[in-house]
Structures are given as C-alpha cells and as structure tokens.
C-alpha cells in the first residue's frame, strides 16, 4: 500500500543557522497512529510544520496521498489537519464560530450538522456559544482538535497534545485519539513522554538532534531492543553465586534470596532452559519466578546515547 505521507531526505536550517532537521526520510501508513518521540528541541515541531506548509524546507520532498506539498498545496492541505503545540485561539470568539471559520477556510461547504457532531464527540457541544477565554485548558485543546477536524482531514497532526495536561485529561486525550483512528483518520502525534508513545502508538519514530533514528512498529521495537529480566526467588538464601553459573552474569540480591537474570528477547536462544537446568544441578531450589520487560524509556535512552 502506498504511504499516505512520504518524506524523502528533508533538511531544514533556520535563519539563525540552527539545523533543525537532517535528511529525514519517513513513510507514514494510512490509518496508523505514529508517535514521534524525542527530547525538546529534537525537531518534532519543525517536521510537522514542514509537512503542513508552515515553513519552507531547504531540500527534500514531501508528498501527501501522492501530491507534492509545494506544487499541489491545495490538495495536500485539504487532506491535513493540524493541532499545534501552543494553544492559539482568539479569546473572544465563540467555539462554534471558530470551528465554522476553520471549515470555510479549508474550502468546505457549510455543514452545521457535521460541526455539531464533532463538537459532541469532543464534549464541547454545551460550550458551543461560550467565548474561548471562558474555557479550561483541556477544553481549549479540544477546540483546537475540533478546528483541525472541521474540514474532515484524512491525516491529523497532534503536536504534543498532552504536554502540561494532568493524568486524567491525558487518558481522555488518548481515548479521543483512538476514536479518531477508528473513524479512519491517520494520526501523527509528537510527545516527549515515552509512556504516551507506549500507550497509544502503533509505530514509534525516534528523533534526536534533527535525525530520525528509527521508525518501527512499537512491538518490534520493544522486541528488538527490549531486554527482559527474570527474577528468581530462592528457597534458601545464597552467600554467593556458584561458579558453575558464572556465564549467566546473574546478580544476587543483597539478602541472597533472589537472583536476577537479564536476557535479550531478540535473541534466538534466551538461555532460560539451560539456566534452570544448571540451577537444579547446582542444588538451588526455586521458590518463584518473575519476568519484566524494559520499557520504551530505557530503549530510548539507549538509542539517544548511541547516537550522541
């Protein structure tokens, strides 16, 4: 299937000389949720701004549904909705008017029923006649989403949708994003919260210092990079690790009551079977075992360290 958004070797240097993107190439598939993960200043907003036509790039090409974003800007921009990082809304305008304005701006005919539907979906309908300045921060963010959806885009960009948002609202936002995906919209969101990418993304792209380090299915990423830990609780405490088990690089807990084994899930052989066999050979009795998997966070820290 052709990607809905395709970025080829795109670079961007700002006027001050700051290079924000270095030869970024990325394909985004229709219907997926892609999380762009990266620390502040990595270039996430710049990448989105370039696709949406807010800034000019130095080199590279971007297509949306096969259309070039410069040459065929009318087609590509009609397909795109953007929710910016900062909350930028006219304080005195009403919710309904500002959403209606957005729809017109994108060249769509009037459709009050559709606007009603999105306002209801985003729990804003009872606020439709309120001035924006009377709304809470979370509502304002949703108004921005409503505006971005007002022209029925196929691709939605959410730039740090949950920055500075409390936990509960964050979960609401995730739910909204999933609903949007199920209605067929492709979603690209940026975040510097790993949990966020982990919680909702199908695919994760990691950006650091203007470079796209990787873009992979979240599960493959975790499998490939993921380390698992096996904690083995023992029947009786050990003073030290028997020399027969040296190869496993086990760690003995301070009280001597548990052993920790770290292995790579990407490897063909995890060595768990052999470890258990060797443990019983050494006369160590197992009381219980636990496994835990490394999170994206740890993967991410490793990646950024590697690239630095």
């Amino acid at each position, binding site marked *: 299937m052709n990607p809905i958004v395709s970025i080829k070797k795109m670079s961007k240097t*700002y*006027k001050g000389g700051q290079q924000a993107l270095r030869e970024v190439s990325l394909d985004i598939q229709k219907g997926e949720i892609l999380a762009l993960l990266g620390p502040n200043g990595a270039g996430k907003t710049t990448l989105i701004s370039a696709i*949406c*036509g*807010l*800034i*000019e790039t130095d080199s590279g090409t971007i297509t949306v549904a096969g259309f070039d974003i410069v040459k065929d*800007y*009318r*087609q*590509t*921009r*009609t397909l*795109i909705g*953007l929710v*910016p990082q*900062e909350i*930028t*809304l*006219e*304080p*005195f*305008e009403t919710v309904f*008017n500002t959403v*209606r*304005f*957005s*729809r*017109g*701006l*994108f*060249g*769509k*005919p009037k459709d009050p029923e559709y606007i009603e539907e999105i306002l209801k979906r985003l729990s804003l309908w009872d606020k439709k006649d309120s001035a924006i300045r009377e709304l809470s921060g979370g509502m304002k963010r949703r108004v921005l989403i409503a*505006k971005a959806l007002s022209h029925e885009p196929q691709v939605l960009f959410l730039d740090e949708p949950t920055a500075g948002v409390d936990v509960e609202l964050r979960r609401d936002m995730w739910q909204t994003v999933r609903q949007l995906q199920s209605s067929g919209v492709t979603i690209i969101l940026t975040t510097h919260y790993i949990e966020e990418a982990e919680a909702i993304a199908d695919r994760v792209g990691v950006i650091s210092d203007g470079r796209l380090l990787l873009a992979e299915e979240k599960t493959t990423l975790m499998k490939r990079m993921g380390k698992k830990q096996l904690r083995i609780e023992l029947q009786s405490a050990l003073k030290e690790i028997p020399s027969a088990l040296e190869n496993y690089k086990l760690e003995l807990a301070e009280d001597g009551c548990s052993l920790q084994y770290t292995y790579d899930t990407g490897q063909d052989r995890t060595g768990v079977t052999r470890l258990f066999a060797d443990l019983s050979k050494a006369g160590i009795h197992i009381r219980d075992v636990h496994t835990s998997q490394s999170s994206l966070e740890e993967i991410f820290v490793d990646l950024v360290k590697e690239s630095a």
Partner: protein
Amino acid sequence: MNLRAVRAIYIYEMSRTFRTLAQSLLSPVLSTSLYFIVFGAAIGSRIQEVDGVSYGAFIVPGLIMLTVITQSVTNAAFGIYFPKFIGTIFELLSAPISFLEIVLGYVGAAATKSFIIGVIILVTANLFVDLHITHPFWMIAFLALTCISFSLLGFIIGIWANNFEQLQLVPLLVITPLVFLGGSFYSISMLPPLWQTVTLFNPIVYLVSGFRWSFYENADVAVGVSLAMITLFLGLCLSVIWWIFKTGYKIRN
C-alpha cells in the same frame, strides 16, 4: 480560487466588527460629531463661506476622508497583525489558500468596514449641515477606491510590523499628519503660496480634493489628477502586495 475561504475570512472579520459594534462604528461617528460641533458650529459660524459653500458643509468630505483613511489603515493593519500576534496565523498558513485569497478576505473586510463608517458619517453630517452631492457616482467611486487603497496599505503595515509599536508607528507618524494637513479643514488657496506648493506633495490633498469635487464641484486640483493619483497609489500598494506574495516576505517563518 478558494472562494469559500475568502468568504470565511470576510465573514469572520466582519462579525468581529459587529461584535465590537460600539468601538468599531460608534467611536468614529462620535468623534466626527465632535468635529462638527467644534469646527462646524463653534468656529465655522465665524468663518465665511469657502468657494460658495458654508464652512460646515465644506469640511464634510474632508472629515469623511480623514476618518475613512485612518480607519482603513488601522483596521486592516490590526486585522492581519492580530493573528500573527496571538499565533492563530498558523491556520491561515496551513490552509489550502493562496496569499492573494488571504488579502482579498482581510482587505475586503477592512475596506467594507471603512466604507460603512464613511456612509454613517455622511448620514450623521446630514443632521448638522445641508449636504448635496452633485456626482453621487464619483463620490462612491472615490470613497471605495480610498477604502481599498488604504486598507491595502494597512495590510502591508500589519504584515511588516513585528510589535505593537511598529503597528502604530506608521499611522501615527505618517498617516495622521498627512491627513490633517491634507486640506480637510481648509482650501489650499487659503494657504500662503510656498505652503501651497509644499502641500502638493501630500497625496492626501488629491483625495480630499477629488472627493470634495464630487460634492460641490469645486476642487483644489483638477479632478482628473485626483483620480490619477488615487489609481497610482492603489497600483503601488498592489505591487507591494505582489512582491510580498512572490518573496514570501515575513509570512512563512
């Protein structure tokens, strides 16, 4: 052409005008009425007729021009500066519209608003003095051309300005003095010869003169020259807009 977008911008801007009806329309009307009371009634009663027209009636076209020019510049400048200032301009830039459509929407709305203000002042003036308009067609043409040209100028200023000081600088330091010295309150022939010559470098003089001609058929300069000047000015503003469009000056980034 994305006409729906032009319409959306136009309606949105006009609705802002009507939302702030008091500021937008009432205040220019109020200040003009004050001018009438001070200049027309209080001082005017001691001034003789100018070129066969009572002083109160003589200043009406100039007063309308004065208000319409200042309003066009400030409204159009503010109209485009405001989204820049609060950041909502991102939406204009990400929408499937061209720069010229943006100009049409914003300048159209600012010009309409000034035109309405001009008409309201005209109607208000009618309460104070006896008006009669000899060339209604040319009156409307001059008014419309002035609204459009100066709204274009305001739009350019709004694009150029980086802060509120700059936004107010040009209207304050350039437009207001030129407008006040543009012959709104006097006929150029009333000035000493040297000043008459200096005055001819003020473009506003030609507008006021042409506009006044459409009322009373008397003018400081030939009406053809007035028309040529306003067309020239309009052309100048359009070229700057075209240049902004070509170079993307201060629009993206």
